[in-house]
């Protein structure tokens, strides 16, 4: 398989993975992402639906709990998802560190 660890995640994907460190349903994810980003990231339900479907297929997240078939379906992050989120965090830290050095000149 192609190694995509170094591929940046979209902001929406990264926030969804963060939000799902605790099991949540669709509305809960949207609210959490909004709060985490201080209202900056307002994810549309169509975008979220597609992202959840994709991430489930990739095995980054999975349906959670007894309600997994109902409309209040909850999702939770998998070990693979945690690994992907951690790799993204590392990438972001590197980006930020280089920026601090060069832009802010505090090398």
């Amino acid at each position, binding site marked *: 398989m192609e190694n995509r660890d170094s591929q*940046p995640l*979209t*902001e*929406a994907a990264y926030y969804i993975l963060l939000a799902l460190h605790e099991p949540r*349903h*669709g*509305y809960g994810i*949207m609210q959490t992402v909004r709060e985490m980003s201080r209202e900056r990231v*307002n*994810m*549309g*339900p*169509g*975008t*979220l*639906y*597609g*992202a959840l479907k994709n991430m489930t297929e990739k095995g980054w997240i999975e349906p959670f709990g007894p309600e997994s078939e109902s*409309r*209040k*379906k909850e999702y939770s992050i998998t070990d693979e998802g945690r690994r992907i989120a951690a790799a993204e965090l590392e990438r972001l830290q590197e980006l930020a560190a280089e920026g601090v050095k060069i832009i802010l000149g505090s090398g």
Partner: protein
Amino acid sequence: MIMKRTKWFFDHEKEEKWLNEMGKDGWQLKKVKARRYTFERGKPGSHEYGMLLLDAVPALSRNSRSYIDFMESSGAEYVSRCFRWAYFRRETDQGPFRVYTDRDSLHSHYRRVAMMNGLIGVANVTIALSNLERGIEIGWVLSNAIVSLPFLWAAYLYVGKMRKAKKDEALYE
């Protein structure tokens, strides 16, 4: 108070815009059937409207039903459906309501719309050509050819939207 309007759109984003303008004037969408829109008098600007294209009509597709369920569980209200288009709305005080908020999902949404229109358009052209070949009355041939035009036009329009959505990708995630 109820008002009915018949209107045809090639571009569903213009349709959404129109529905939202009607809503701001106090005409809230109740039902869409074969391009006929039913509005009900309500509070101006109480809701914002959004549309999405389902994979198939809900009666035939579990996926479409679960999509509608998901939209409802995310705080949107299912208003109506016309063919594969589903109409939703959300109260304005919950913030701006857009179904798709990133380039990727918008792009694949445009692609689905372009595909649907393209397929219907091409099917009609194919029927027209095969009828022409079989020597069927020219009126029938022409009617299929004419029916194909709006669909092909819509497909063209959406391919343009796909391009536009892709354009920024080299710079923005």
